[in-house]
């Protein structure tokens, strides 16, 4: 479990969004990767992950005026909303909730979620052609053959791009950990 250090900037963003809901977009951009990663690991499909993520942010927007700054990171508050929604969804499906209250500390975010959010940022920094292949292959779940057709290149070349992109990501993760 990794704690997110709340900083003064985040507090300013929250207070600005409480005064003016239009500023909520700034909080959204800084929190999206974590919330989606948290949800995606706990629900079976992407459709459900997207539905729940959207619900988390809409609830957060609606309840933002009630958010009291007590040093708790905003992402922790969002993940709290997410965990309640996920638990509610599992209960509605008459199944045991996969997530328990202990999983989240009050001011922490699961390390796996942090790592997932980091991958989202690292993918954005890949070279253009590698970024395209990774996005189409893993985010849009297209086959190598389809991607090769879209790029006008051979399947072998696309496989090489995929190989290099994954190596690139692995190296960046190593660099960050060090």
């Amino acid at each position, binding site marked *: 479990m990794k704690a997110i250090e709340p900083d003064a900037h985040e507090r300013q*963003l929250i207070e*600005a969004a409480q*005064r*003016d*809901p*239009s*500023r*909520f*977009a*700034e909080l*959204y*951009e*800084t929190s*999206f990767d974590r919330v*989606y*990663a948290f949800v*995606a*690991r706990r629900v079976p499909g*992407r459709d459900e*992950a*997207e539905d729940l*993520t*959207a619900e988390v*942010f*809409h609830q957060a*927007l609606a309840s933002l005026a009630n958010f009291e700054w007590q040093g708790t990171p905003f992402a922790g508050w969002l993940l709290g909303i997410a965990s309640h929604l996920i638990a509610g969804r599992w209960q509605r499906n008459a199944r045991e909730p996969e997530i328990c209250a202990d999983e989240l500390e009050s001011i922490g975010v699961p390390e796996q979620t942090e*790592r*997932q959010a980091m*991958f*989202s*940022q690292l*993918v*954005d*920094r890949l070279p253009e052609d590698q970024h395209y292949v*990774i*996005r*189409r*292959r*893993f*985010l*849009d*779940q297209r086959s*190598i053959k389809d991607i090769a057709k879209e790029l006008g290149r051979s399947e*072998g070349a696309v*496989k*090489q791009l*995929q*190989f*290099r992109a*994954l*190596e690139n*990501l*692995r190296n960046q*993760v190593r660099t960050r950990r060090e």
Partner: protein
Amino acid sequence: MNNSMADQLEEAVSALMTGSQSGPHQSDPRIRQLLAVADELRYLPRTGFRARLRTDLETAANHRAMHRPLDILPAPPRQRGSRESVVPPLFRTGSSAFPVRGSHLAISFALHVAALSLVVAWGWWMVENRAVVRKTVAELIPSDSYALPAAPGVSYGGGGGGDDDKMQASHGSAPRFAAEQLTPPAVNVRNEDPKLAAEPTVIGSPDLVLPQSTQPGDPMAALLTPPSNGIGSGGGIGSGHGGGVGSGEGPGVGEGRGGGIGGGVFRVGGGVSAPRAIYAPDPEFSEEARKAKYQGSVVLSAIIGSDGRPRNLRVVRSLGMGLDEKATEAVARWRFEPARKGSQPVAVEVNIEVAFRLY
């Protein structure tokens, strides 16, 4: 790097994506490490979802921010890899959807206030103007009870008639008084065999009883013979005209006119009650008088018949500027509870003062 490594990795990735392999189980540690990275990538959101959700949130936030003062920041260009340092505002300027500025809100507020003020002022003016009109109309009738003033003298009436004879009417008794007259009296009856016989009467209160004799004629005539209807006209007996008896005018008896006995129509007083207006539509100002802000009173003379209708309207005191005509038009539409002598409705002549005032 050789192609076999890339192919091997793709096979492992395909197995991962289709769910036939839940995680990295490759023997090659290099492939295994890359497959672990690929496993993480499976949980990234689909392309476009992030932007779509942001748009949805913008719409929702826009809804919530409609009534708040807004901090408008220009939208900085979004660049890949610099998301952390960029603070994109939700509302964009320029031609994008829903541009909102504080100045726009202020202008909109001012316009709404101006429009509302205009509506209120117009309504206020209408109410005030309506009050003026109503007040002016209310002042047209001198008395709040519409009771007309009593005449200072005694009441009198009269009538007259004749049949264009060369001789003055002969002496005799007038027929009995009745509220209406079907047949005028006559000394010499021209039609001895009428198809529909009716008793001759004169108009007046049936309570009035004159000495009766077998010879009909004018009670005021000096001549006894020869029998004559008189030199008057319009039927009746005498030198007047109008179906009555005497030298007057109308269906009564004696001098004067209008009915009854004596020298004219009834006047209020002496046992005759005043008529009471029961329907009195407001007269209008003439356009000429309104523009000139001309004020004053018109006095009309009228006979209020036993049926409550005014007739013989004439202007006694003129005001001009078209107001005489307006007053006459209005009073002609009035209806009265007729004057009464005893229990019988009778016609009376009254003066009506119509005041035109602007406030």
